[in-house]
């Protein structure tokens, strides 16, 4: 049996790892446990889009800070600030685009509307059927495949012990904190942080807390390497498309099309019924894709609660237990909001407000 940690973090994605790093900086003895490998859940399966144009208005201050975090991580996570366009192909989409992007610009995102001439010059391979578009120079992407490699390196550098393939199967409270059952033995800690993403519901249930967490099953696909076709992050007014060409020439296509499956059953499944229109929309926006082949498609579980705001704070009803997750735009915002979570656990005043996991989810 190992010595008692100040905190055990359950879940080794971006949020679990980044919070552990913050708490270790603050002097806590932390450990990170993951049921699989670090960064292989949503943190490693999402499309890597860093776009202020698809962030919620109320979360914009967090997203702006998040972009700074990604920029600081730089090449190690494949960060590229490319700018990004959101496209509308119909009048209805155009209205939607103007209404929503105006509010996001007012919330602090440097979003502007651009002329059709502008977009044809900037992205000549896009379809001529664009009728209006918005642009954000802060947008870009990072390579989500590198999440695990990056945080594994950071944890090792900081001397924070982590265990992979170490699912927590039971949590019990003893006088001094928590005892976690794992296949690698019992781990004890004075505090725990649950950062298990789409698996938060079963994690909290181990302490008899019901968190109303659901999972979306987002589909992502990648093409073979292609000649340069586009240099920015492309989105669609409806949110049904994100697309960017990586420096290696592959084009990554997302947009939140739903696969099927549940976190409890393991990985989600790609369905042809979702994949085909997703790809058709991508090819509609970038016609040259018709000559490309799709190499792989996969899904990632995006956790959310009914009001689609984050869970960041104390686990309701259990002292010294905390929860972090369900951040809409969690890849972008994760590295920043984890610092706030870490500060809260360290008893410091967070820079921006947290999101009480014990709130009434039916009110906005």
């Amino acid at each position: 049996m190992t010595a008692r940690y100040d905190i055990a973090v359950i879940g080794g994605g971006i949020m679990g790892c980044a919070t552990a790093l913050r708490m270790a900086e603050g002097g806590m003895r932390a450990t990170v446990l993951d049921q699989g490998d670090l960064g292989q859940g949503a943190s490693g399966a999402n499309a890597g889009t860093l776009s202020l144009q698809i962030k919620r208005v109320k979360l914009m201050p967090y997203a702006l800070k998040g972009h700074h975090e990604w920029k600081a991580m730089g090449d190690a996570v494949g960060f590229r600030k490319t700018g990004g366009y959101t496209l509308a192909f119909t009048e209805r989409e155009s209205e939607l685009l103007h209404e929503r992007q105006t509010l996001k610009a007012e919330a602090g995102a440097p979003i502007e509307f651009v002329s059709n001439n502008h977009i044809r010059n900037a992205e000549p391979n896009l379809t001529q059927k664009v009728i209006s578009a918005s642009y954000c120079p802060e947008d870009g992407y990072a390579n989500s495949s590198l999440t695990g490699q990056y945080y594994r390196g950071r944890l090792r550098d900081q001397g924070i012990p982590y265990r992979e393939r170490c699912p927590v199967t039971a949590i019990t409270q003893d006088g001094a904190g928590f005892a976690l059952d794992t296949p690698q033995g019992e781990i004890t800690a004075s505090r725990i942080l649950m950062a298990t993403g789409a698996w938060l519901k079963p994690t909290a249930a181990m302490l008899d807390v019901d968190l109303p967490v659901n999972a979306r099953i987002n589909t992502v696909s990648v093409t073979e390497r292609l000649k340069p076709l586009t240099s920015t992050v492309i989105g669609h007014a409806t949110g049904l498309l994100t697309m960017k060409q990586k420096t290696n020439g592959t084009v990554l296509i997302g947009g939140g099309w739903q696969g099927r499956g549940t976190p409890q059953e393991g990985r989600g499944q790609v369905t042809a019924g979702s994949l085909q229109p997703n790809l058709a929309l991508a090819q509609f926006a970038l016609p040259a894709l018709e000559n490309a082949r799709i190499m792989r498609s996969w899904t990632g579980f995006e956790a959310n609660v009914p009001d689609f705001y984050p869970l960041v704070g104390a686990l309701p009803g259990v002292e010294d237990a905390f929860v972090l997750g369900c951040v809409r735009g969690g890849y972008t915002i994760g590295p920043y909001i984890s610092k706030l979570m870490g500060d809260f656990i360290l008893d410091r005043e967070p820079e921006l407000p947290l999101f009480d996991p014990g709130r009434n989810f039916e009110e906005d």
Partner: protein
Amino acid sequence: MLLLCGTAQMADLIDILVVGAGPAGGNAALAAARHGKHVVLLDEQVKPGGQIWRAKDSSILSAPQTPEGSAGDALRAQITKAQIDHRGSTRIWQIERQSEGWDVHVLRDGQVERLTTKTLVLATGAHEFVQPIPGWTKPGVFGLAGATALFKQNLSPPGQRTIVSGTGPLVFFVASEIRRLGGTVAAVVTPNTRRDWVSKLPALARRVDLALRGALWIAHIMMNRVPIFWGCSVVSVEGVARVEGAEIQKLDANWAPKGETWSIDADSLCLGHGLIPSIEAPQLSGITISYRSDLGGWVPDIGQDGATSVEGVFLCGDGAGIRGATAAELHGTLAGLSAAEHLGARTAKERATLRPRFNRAARFGLAMTALSTPRPGFAMLTKPDTIVCRCESLTQTRISQEVEVGAASSNAVKSGLRAGMGPCGGKYCQTAIARFIALHENRPEAEIPPSAPRPPLRPVPMSALSANFDYDDLPIPKPAPL
């Protein structure tokens, strides 16, 4: 869901869809059809036969017949006679469970198509393992199994003067075929020793016909004074732009290279170190996998007569564990009968009669698999600057650096380095990388499963997937919360 698109017209409900038309899949289809089931048989090749009984290209139909050719022709004739709906040049790219069976998504003639079936028989065969050695990516190096495809389809030897190096019986078959096709074999090099072969005599005795055929290959090679280097391997490929020769070294009992090396000139090299079951399609249909070194590595979990824990899915042939072609035929028949039984046919008696024959053939096949599967020391053939992942040009050093900083699974190495994200989908590198992680971490290979398979099973053109898309069909969702 609404929409889509193009070829997704309501398909007829198939009773039994068989994927793979080799000895296993072909016989599964025949057995099921005998019981009156509506069978569709898919294969990537134009004609049935699989890798081992591959049909000859039409330009060489007059060429002399081989036992593989005859067996293939017999299977092809039976499939035609049984009026089985065989669809060649068809690749499956996704399998989805539906309420009344399975949707199998295929690519055929540049178009995607959805087939719906009550039951599935997966007979997806195997692919070759090659332990990466210095120079193995040079032009003029062929896989052993890859070379046999060349012979069967085009009747051409791989070069003028060929070194044949590899494990198990295949190395002798390839050498004798090259000679039969007019090529010169510079040497046969095999890690197996004569003693290894003698130790398999009890298994060989169970199938005297097959053992005799192997003995004839070896006798033919020896009589023609082709040197056979037992207990040795080609350890590096020589040449600047292409193969000019190879370096050979003795191996120890664990198959680690040991002692002096020598060179042999050649313009081509056939290299192969056993077969690995192709398990991606079974995995996509939800079947769990286990590590079985006796069956060639990671295999789907199956029960008797090809049954699995997933209702309505049956497996057979080398894709369920490397047992060889003779066992695959019988395994295919058993799985086809099991699938028919699942749909109401009475096949228990027939299966009980066949099972001992299958077990006998499997014992012979497993003995060959044991000879073919590399021992742990073989990993030492890969040197620090040897390319391990061909698609991304990753060397052993690059991979070991990644493992040393904590990438302790196939998925972690894949995510960090893209090993397995290229066109081959990890087929070439995955096994070598998993074995390397196991060696480095001193863990059993059974703890290092392959990365999760991701559809499409083969690359699919965007144009096929997005065919007949009508923009107005886009399902506009409720806007995301602001």
